Every structure is written in C-alpha cells, then in structure tokens.
C-alpha cells in the first residue's frame, strides 16, 4: 500500500475531487497547509510597515491506496490540479506497510477502501 500526499492549489480542490471520483478513489483526508515553493509570494503591508508573505495557501491531500490504485490516483490528481503554471503543486508517495479500520479492526488492503 502507498500513502500519497499531494499539495495543490486551494481552488483546485473541487476539480481534483471530481477526477478522483472518476478514478474510483473515494477516500481521502484534506488539510490546509501553507507552502513555500517555486511560486512567488506577495506583498502585504500593515499600518505602513511591509510584510513579505511567501507562505502561500495550499491544500494537502492524504490518500492511502493499494498498489494497483497508485498510478490512477496520481494521474487523477494531475488531471484535476494541473494548469501548467508555477504553484500547481507536488505529489509525494510513501510506503504504507499497514492500515487499520477502527470500526472493524480489519487490516491491510481490506481496510483501505
């Protein structure tokens, strides 16, 4: 099993959810995050003093999938999130040795979906 972590633009979340659904990936966890990447930040100011903001709002997805779902999940994320512009985001893939469903105690590939 793999744990897929993806950082995307906040306003792309809906699109990504849709492409994931089409790829039959229904489960995921979403967190808000601030990202520092290639994308340039912006300038704020407050009462005459400047503030350089280089942590931009991102959405972080965490999706646990069985091996056979990994590629279609990646493809779906890219399809939903890609605009071709800097700031589109990153996907990280980790090995996931174990997964447990709290309700039933099931483990492994069974528990993931």
């Amino acid at each position: 099993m793999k744990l897929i972590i993806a950082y995307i633009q906040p306003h792309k979340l809906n699109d990504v959810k849709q492409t994931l659904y089409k790829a039959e990936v229904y489960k995921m966890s979403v967190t808000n995050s601030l990202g520092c990447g290639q994308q340039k930040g912006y300038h704020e100011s407050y009462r005459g003093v400047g503030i350089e903001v280089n942590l931009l709002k991102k959405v972080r997805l965490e999706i646990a999938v069985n091996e056979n779902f990994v590629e279609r999940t990646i493809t779906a994320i890219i399809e939903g999130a890609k605009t071709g512009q800097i700031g589109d985001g990153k996907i990280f893939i980790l090995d996931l040795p174990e997964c447990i469903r709290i309700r039933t105690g099931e483990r492994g590939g069974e528990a993931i979906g």
Partner: protein
Amino acid sequence: METKVIVDTMWVLITAFLVFFMNLGFAAVESGFARAKNCVNIMSKNFVVFAASSLGFLFLGWGLMFGDGTWLVGLKGLFFVGGADNSPAVGEAYKGVYSAISWTGVPLWAKFFFQLVFCGTAATIVSGAVAERIKYIAFIIFTFVMAMFIYPVVGHWVWGGGWLAKMGMFDFAGSTVVHSIGGWAALAGVIMLGPRIGKYDNGHIKAIPGHNLSLATLGTFVLWFGWFGFNPGSTMAADPNAIAHVAVTTNTAAAAAIMSATIVSWLLLGKPDLGMTLNGCLAGLVAITAPCAFVSVGSSLVIGLIAGVLVVLAVMMFDRLRLDDPVGALSVHLVNGVFGTICVGLFAQDKITGTATGNGLFYGGGFKLLGAQLAAVISVAVFVFVAALATWAILKAVIGIRVSREEELRGLDIGEHGNEAYAGFQVFTTE
C-alpha cells in the same frame, strides 16, 4: 429660540445620528455575507463611501437637490450649501434659495446633515451588490457620481420640489429616493461586472457562503435600529402622533417580514435559512419606508408579510437570471423599494398622520395616487439605470472596474489593500 425649533432640531439630529449609524450596519451585513478574503475591501468600501458622500453632497449634491430651480434640478445655491437662507424660518417667513425644504423649522445645517445621511445610504447600497470583484478606485469614483449627480437629481424630483412632487407622488422616507436609486445603480453595476468567478460554473448555481453570519446578524440589528431614525426622523419635526405611529408601522412591517421570510424559506428550502430571515427583515423595512406615515398599523403588517415573501423569491430569481448579488441588495432595496413605493398608492389613508396624500386604491382613492407612484417607479428606473450604466461603462473603459482573475481568486484584500482581515486565523477558501 422658540421651543418648537429646539425640539425639532434635537429630533432631526438624533434621528440623523441613528441613520448615520446604519453605515455600520451595511458594513457588517455586506462583509458578513462575503468571503473572508474580501473583508478588508468591503469594510474599506463601506467606510469610505460615507466620507465620499459627505464631501460630494456638501460640494454639489445638496444644491442640486434642494436649490430652487426647474422641475428637473436645483440651480440656486449649488455649491457648498452656500445659498441665501434664513432657516429655521418656515413658510412665508422663509427667505432663501432652498425653499423646497423650508417646511421644516430647523437650522440649515440640521437640514443638510439629515439629508446627507440619506444620501450616504443610497450610495452604500451599491457596495454590497458589486462586492468581491470591483476595483476599489472605481467604486470610490462611482460614489462621487452618485452623491453629486444621480441621487440629488432624483431627490430633487421627489423631495426638492421637482416634477414628481408636483404630480402628487409621495415617498415618506425614501423607498424610491434612497432604496430604489441604490438598487437600480446596483443592478447596473452587477450587469456591467458580471458574476464572481465560480458562481455560475457549468450552468450550475453555486452557493458562496458568507464568512461571518454573526457579523451579518449584528449588522441587520443595527440597520433595524437605524431605521427608527430613518422613518420616524423623516417627519423632520417632533410631531408626537406621527413619530409614534411611524415607529410602530416600521417595526410591525419588519416583524411581519421576518416571520414570512422565515416561513417561506422553511417551506421552500426545507430549513429556515438565517440569511433569508435577515434579508426578510430588511425587505420589510425597505417596503414600509415610503408608506410608513401614510398607512395604518394593520396595513404595515400586510405590507411586511408580502415583503418577506417577495425577498425570498427575488433572491432565488436573481440567481436564476445569473445576476450575482452577493448580499441580496437587489432583492432587498430594489424589489422592495419599488414595492413599497407602490404600496403608498394601494394602502394610503388620507391624513392618517397629517399629510394629505389622498387615499390609496384599497381605501377608495382610485388610481390617482397609484398612478403618481407608478410614474415615479418607472421614471426613476429609467433615469437611474441609464445614468448608472453609463457611469459604469465609462469607468470600465477608462480605468477598468473589475480586478484581475488572479486577484479575485486570492482575494481583494491582498490585491487592493495589501491587508488581511483576520491575521493569525486559519481561513481557507477553496473556491
């Protein structure tokens, strides 16, 4: 100084302060119904709008509206409230160039201040409808145009001795003069700007929830409170029977509209939507604004009940028409401003608080009064809508009226002001 002048001046000023306070209400309602990322911008707009109106109305607006002149506009004492005037003298004793408002026996600056706060309200109404996408500078300039031209011209027609006044049209506290004007100007803005990104994607209507319904609720309470200045103050004299009557008709219409809007949204949408309840309140208040001194308490109840239903239907209708109005300003001020104006022609009872309006249709007065009211509705619609549309079009051509897509997505607070409304809070908007 004569006692009557003293008490009338107190009444006019205190109620004017209450109307001024409505600026806070508008700011709160409008920003509460918008997203957090645009909150600084809306607050800024609503804050600066009264400053701009104050200056614009001082420079020229007052003169155009109340200066002696033609059926169309004032011509005397145009600038800086600078004409001859011996207020608080009234009637025959009055010698000056602002005779249309010489019926109220208060000092000139009291008259000015009271009228100013009304002008400010009309300008503020636009703010909500064009929120979350308009350029700050474009809005400021539009406000000056409103305060210096559009509002005073219509104001002259109705309250400044112009043609509608002469025709026997009645608008006690401004369903037409304040709310419809604001509403038509807002409609022109909504059309010229187009909807917010994501609002009507792929043929679906998407809800874009407001970021702070506490704020919106407090704001509505403040507006309701301020309306006790708006309507009872429009006597511009402390006439006990009239002001008590108006306070009760005003409140009754609001209460009835709250109830009917809540019930209708409960039935239509399955649950009692707070936004609809709040808009219901405002709808009732707008609708009773013109007739508040001309109708009975019973009629005010009926008017309120209808207003509450109207506003819910209007909100849903404007969404169907793809007219994106984030705060419901059109449904509240335009639809109910028109409705309230017409109500005078339907429900008026002659001299119920002293003014000789003649009876409305439902009280045997026939179509005379109703006709005058309809003439006002139509002429104001045409004039304001066209003037506003032209103004927006010119602004669009010269400086642009809409922020860039990128700025809209990130929020106008950063783009227009370089500020953030809620530093430290985790606010995420995924559209």
